[in-house]
């Protein structure tokens, strides 16, 4: 129940924002996603502009407040698999005449870890079957992303996030998340 509530809290703002959006359809990004670089996975995200922060005198530097709901997955083979539901809220900066951008954001994540608890080894042939237990963590992160446009429809970006896992019966544990992906601007 606690988990469902948390997911709803993270995803509801996105629905609300979608209703408000008057701009083009929100982009969708697909990324290679990894914990510490060696636990590979994938992340899918979208992004909504909350507020234009650019002032009249700063038109050359566009800034906007955004929120980005995300779903990610990564795995440490033969050890654990992880599902991440996350929402980043932050500021994206882009120069008017340049295609590059950067973003600084805070993430609120719910991480569900499926840990292999037992490996049953058949002694006749060495085959293995696994059983798993799961545990949940609250995962706040501080993220920095940068990227640039590849075309009018596609951007590339890279992102690093540093955070702490809380819960799951353990004390805080630092984690570092890497992301390298493409963001697709969808037409109406």
């Amino acid at each position, binding site marked *: 129940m606690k988990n469902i509530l948390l997911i709803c809290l993270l995803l509801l703002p996105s629905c609300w924002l979608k209703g408000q959006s008057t701009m083009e359809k929100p982009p969708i990004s697909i990324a290679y996603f990894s914990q510490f670089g060696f636990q590979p996975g994938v992340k899918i995200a979208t992004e909504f502009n909350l507020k234009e922060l650019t002032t009249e005198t700063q038109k050359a530097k566009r800034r906007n407040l955004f929120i980005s709901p995300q779903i990610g997955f990564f795995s440490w083979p033969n050890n654990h698999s992880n599902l991440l539901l996350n929402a980043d809220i932050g500021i994206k900066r882009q120069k008017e005449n340049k295609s590059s951008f950067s973003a600084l954001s805070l993430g609120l994540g719910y991480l569900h870890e499926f840990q292999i608890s037992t490996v049953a080894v058949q002694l006749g*042939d060495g085959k293995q079957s*696994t059983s798993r237990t799961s545990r949940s963590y609250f995962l706040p992160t501080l993220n920095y992303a940068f990227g640039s446009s590849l075309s009018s429809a596609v951007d590339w970006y890279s992102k690093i996030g540093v955070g702490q896992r809380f819960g799951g019966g353990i004390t805080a*544990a630092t984690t570092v998340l890497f992301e390298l992906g493409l963001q697709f601007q969808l037409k109406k």
Partner: protein
Amino acid sequence: MTRKDFIKNIATLGIATPFMASLLTSCTKENIEFFEEVPANFNGKIIIVGAGAAGLIAGHILQQKNIDFQIIEASSIYGGRVKKAADFADFPIDLGGEWIHTNPSILAKLLNDSTSQADIDIIPYNPKTISVWKDGKLRKRNVASHFYSEYKFKSTTWYGFFEKHIVPNFSEKIIYNSPITEIDYTGDKVTLKNNQGGNFSADKVLVTVPVPILQSNYIQFNPPLPSEKIAAVNNIGFPDGIKAFIEFSERFYPDLTFADGGLINGGDTLYYDAGFGKDAKSNVLALFSVSEETGKYTNLESDTATFEKIMSELDEIFDGQATKYYKKHIIQNWSKEPFIRGSYSHYDNYGDMDILGEPLDNKVFFAGEALHPTDSSTVHGAGESGYDAVVSMISG
């Protein structure tokens, strides 16, 4: 790009691949490479000196090949550096080799019996709470949990594996309390003598004793070992080794504590939750120490002094909670085992391994953890070296 185009392109990019990889991992049915079928061109008798992991696997394979053999063990039990405490806690405890430092399918490989219907439960050993004791402070290093994972037995031990699956096939062929002191390979037969004057004879001999036994010249070879082999043996490091298990009424310790600065400092003195991942209710904290500094535990005058040393260290690390919650303990000082004398081999020059492993006149062969080319210092490495030695002996 329309949404339809987007979906089409993503499908083309194969975005599902990472998911597939994980899916495959989670239901892995790993096929292992079994020991190859070896032609047995040998009809004589083999004597194995030492009933540790290498000697037992060698005996097991010889039994499967119906080759006459005998295992002569110096101590009163088999296992060597594999040993268990069955009744100390509510789970069996490995007093010696404990971790499975490779794919756990190695157990099937060691058993080498495709008709076996048995299975065995293994746990990934991936401690979540990790601390480092350094400069008088206990620091959390839980981040290390992302970088370290091995395997352990869930409800048995390495000793239990041998006890249940290997030894019953040939238990009557093990002679105990018979330390071999002489090996004479001058004649057609190899003759052996134990410390009570008992004689044994075989066509070939497999020596699986720990390195310090060879270094101390406890066994006299005739002709003597080649000087190159003696030099190689003496070059191998074999630090002190100890394990201790202490039961407490309350748990106050993390899953794993590096007691000597650990991690970056490469220390091998650990305090760890012995029941991690097992069906254990009792709180058992274990000490594992194998390093040049381990003598501070192993070289004391008695196990009582060793225990007091450990408890004072634990009280310092955990603010007196060790004494407060202490219930009972057990100590396994491997350095003081007369036929072990330490922990396991460390090489500065792996070329010494090749020299140590060279047979003598195709009559005296060598095996043990020190002789596995990639996995020395491990139980499975010892077992595989025993197998390899048998292959050399019976197919040559």
